[in-house]
């Protein structure tokens, strides 16, 4: 009590104490003790604001000059840990994609200032999406890994990290890129193997639902919908049952003097990646909230592709195709996304977040002002694989966002481990690409990468960059709701997963062309998958499948 009483006069501000404190603060500022902290905070906020205005949303597609400028401005963390010219003489090889002139092309621009500063030199191995998997598999199987840094999706972690081909992430990199900032579904076990961290995450992948606002607010269509005897209001479908009804209804209707179409399926094979689009139609039917698995039975790897849920999704495609554009059978996901939906054809597609990025920020889009987003539609009932019955949930329609592919990451290969300088250089390059600020720019502009950090969901930053608040709120909410959904359908990170998908694509094209019915085709896929599981090794696959689901 005495002490408390004695303290009071000292805490009471007087002219003298205020002046003393002010002088002390000024001294701190002059000495840099306080100044460095505030400068860093301000500088980072300024940097984020500055880079996200390059070139500015709606001001055309970014160019190589823009990528270099962003790379230069984001060099701060590199400069803090690496001396200028420290990697002189180091040569690194980087293997990645060149899809839609993005990915590696951006990395080149971002890393040019890094090369100039550190003195290292990077050579590039550019691959088309379809060539990526075979090139990587061949390098792994034949022991001819000829790259030091690799852009890779999480589904391949079983093939690469599981075989000891990747270099473990040093702690200084974890700190530099702030791994705690990643959204929850991209935190371990994703990016890790046997408890070791390998991946610099640069992307978050989940299919969301992209739809046309003008179509679903059109008064003429609303009237026609009512006139057709529908009891519900005309609006954005919330379930797959509604998607089917709207797709059938829109056939033969007009919107802005053009033929209106509803949902766009992607039946043409796309190197295995096309299977995700059937997965998006199936997840609400097949992913039960009480069951983590939805593609295989968890204890046996028995495929579920021929169960009633998946067959229903396949049948939905068969039923919808006659109401879609006449050549839809020859459309792969790239066609539906970039040649149809962004060009104004069709009113609903599932896709990764690229559509939302490109719709607003790219010259190729005509729908930037009339597109909105949601999580994938749900289903009034969901199949329960354990009971073999369809359940109606008391909570309403079952939603199960398809967390397809789990995003791209940058990995450093184990072959640099023997050379300390090269090891540090490779990780520094990877850390630069996966930097917190640089990643914000990547997810805002066409890059092939979507939001994947908690810090990416600060909507004001997007608005400041030029995004329309309503638009970006819709876009980011659809992503965040998918990432955090309790019933999300997660990609299995098992070796050879694209072989399963590729086999399925082949059989699906036969089904969609009318050569076999949905059940027979699905049975054929299941038989081929069983054979493949045996060939790769069933017991090992079961273990990895469980691990990927966190069981």
């Amino acid at each position: 009590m005495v002490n408390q009483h004695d303290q009071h006069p000292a805490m009471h501000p007087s002219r003298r104490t205020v002046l003393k404190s002010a002088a002390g603060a000024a001294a701190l500022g002059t000495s840099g003790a306080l100044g460095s902290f505030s400068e860093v905070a301000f500088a980072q906020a300024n940097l984020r604001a500055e880079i996200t205005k390059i070139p500015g949303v709606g001001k055309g597609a970014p160019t190589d000059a823009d990528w270099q400028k962003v790379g230069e401005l984001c060099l701060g963390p590199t400069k803090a840990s690496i001396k200028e010219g420290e990697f002189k003489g180091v040569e690194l090889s980087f293997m990645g994609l060149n899809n839609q002139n993005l990915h590696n092309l951006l990395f080149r621009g971002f890393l040019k200032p890094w090369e100039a500063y550190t003195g290292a030199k990077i050579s590039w191995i550019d691959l088309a999406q379809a060539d990526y998997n075979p090139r990587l598999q061949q390098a792994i199987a034949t022991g001819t890994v000829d790259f030091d840094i690799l852009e890779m999706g999480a589904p391949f972690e079983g093939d690469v990290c599981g075989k000891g081909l990747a270099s473990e992430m040093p702690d200084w990199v974890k700190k530099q890129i702030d791994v705690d900032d990643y959204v929850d579904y991209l935190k371990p076990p994703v990016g890790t193997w046997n408890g070791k961290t390998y991946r610099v995450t640069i992307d978050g992948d989940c299919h969301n639902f992209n739809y046309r606002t003008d179509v679903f607010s059109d008064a003429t269509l609303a009237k026609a919908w009512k006139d057709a005897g529908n009891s519900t209001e005309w609006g954005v479908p919330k379930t797959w049952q509604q998607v089917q009804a709207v797709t059938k209804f829109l056939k033969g209707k007009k919107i802005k003097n053009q033929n209106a179409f509803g949902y766009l399926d992607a039946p043409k094979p796309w190197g295995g990646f096309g299977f995700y689009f059937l997965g998006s139609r199936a997840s609400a039917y097949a992913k039960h909230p009480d069951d983590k698995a939805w593609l295989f039975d968890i204890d046996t790897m028995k495929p579920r592709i021929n169960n009633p849920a998946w067959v229903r999704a396949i049948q939905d495609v068969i039923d919808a195709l006659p109401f879609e554009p006449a050549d839809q059978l020859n459309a792969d996901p790239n066609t539906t996304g970039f040649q149809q939906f962004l060009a104004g054809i069709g009113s609903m597609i599932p896709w990764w977040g690229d559509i939302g990025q490109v719709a607003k920020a790219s010259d190729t889009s005509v729908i930037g002002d009339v597109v909105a987003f949601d999580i994938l539609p749900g289903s009034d009932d969901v199949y329960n694989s354990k009971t073999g019955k369809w359940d109606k949930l008391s909570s309403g329609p079952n939603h199960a966002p398809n967390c397809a592919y789990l995003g791209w990451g940058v990995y450093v290969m184990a072959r640099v481990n023997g050379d300390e300088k090269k090891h540090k250089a490779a990780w520094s390059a990877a850390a630069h690409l996966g930097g917190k600020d640089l990643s914000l720019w990547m997810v805002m502009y066409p890059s092939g990468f979507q939001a994947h950090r908690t810090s990416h969901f600060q909507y004001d930053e997007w608005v400041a960059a030029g995004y329309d608040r309503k638009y970006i709120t819709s876009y980011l909410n659809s992503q965040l709701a998918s990432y955090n959904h309790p019933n999300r359908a997660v990609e299995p990170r098992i070796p050879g997963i694209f072989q399963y998908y590729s086999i399925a694509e082949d059989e699906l094209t036969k089904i969609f062309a009318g050569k076999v019915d949905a059940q027979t085709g699905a049975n054929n896929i299941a038989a081929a998958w069983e054979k493949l599981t045996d060939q790769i090794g069933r017991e090992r696959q079961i273990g990895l499948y469980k691990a990927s689901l966190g069981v």
Partner: protein
Amino acid sequence: MRLISMQNSVPVSDDLHYRPVAKRARGSGKIAGRALVLLASLGFMLVLLIQILHTTGAMTAGFSDWRPILIAYLVWAIAFGVGQVLTRGEHGQRALFLLPAVFFTVAVVIFPTIFGIYIASLDWNLSSIEGPRFSGFDNVRGMLNDTYYWNALGNMVFYTAAVLGEYAIAFGLALLLSAEIRARKFFRVVFLLPMMLSPVAVSWMIGKSLMEYRFGPAATLARYLGWDNPAFFASPWMARFSIQAMDAWVSIPFIMIILLAGLQAMPKEVQEAAKVDGANGWQSFWHVTFPIMLPVSITVLIIRIIFKLKLADLVINVTAGGPGGATDTVSSFIYRVYRDRSNVGYGTALAMVYLLMIIVLLTVLLRLSKRWTQKVV
């Protein structure tokens, strides 16, 4: 003139009787030669054995890769050549002209084929942690039950039969270009242009742009002509014909240029004689031009069939084998098995069986063509 000719004929006749006497190797040279070849062969076999044992894990010593085996092969090849000269004298020197080609063929054709047969007998999926396993004829047995393979083979029958149509069109064009028409040289160059284009470029320019359903000029023209939904790749037969049309567009110039060369080499007197005998245009073509052109025709048809059996690029790029496998070719299917599914053993087995089929087919075709041409000639 006749005298000169006779004078010339004398030394020619002498030349025919001239038989150079080959220098024989001496006895010591023979022994040294044999010893050299023996040593080199033993050395090569030893290095090879060490590397095989090292690779299979039977011993730790060995090389990190197979490059030293290639060097050992080259050293052995040189030693073998030197050994030939030492052992067989001038005959050995003559053999040196042939040996490099033989060794090269062994290295890049014979060995890869044998190695391919070995790979074809493996159950080898690149994702399998256990790596390759010997499975004998399992892959071939699997192929017999593979509906995709047989479907692709069925499509190949269609594509191969269509070569006759390509040939007919090419022959017509060759006849036109060999006739005295205006701007003949210009048309010859223009007609050759499609052949100069890469099939991948054609896939994009024609298949994915010109014939594109929404904005392609070909689709727009088809709509103008009354076809409501000009989807060139959505129904099986339409897609098959569309792929065939694109392939024909690229390939007809090749057939045409060979036939044109044949037509220009044909003696004019024969046709003039037919004309004098009162043959009309069709009779002159059918009874004179066509039979004379038959050897050229068969040659170009066989070459074209070989090319056709390898059709893949157009299909992979434009339809990916669809719709429902309607346009799939054996090569595009193997591409998917090998590249998309990393099924190396099975993919190689499919390719090996297909190679055998092509060899048998072409052998039969060559025999038949020999008979036909003999009959006509």
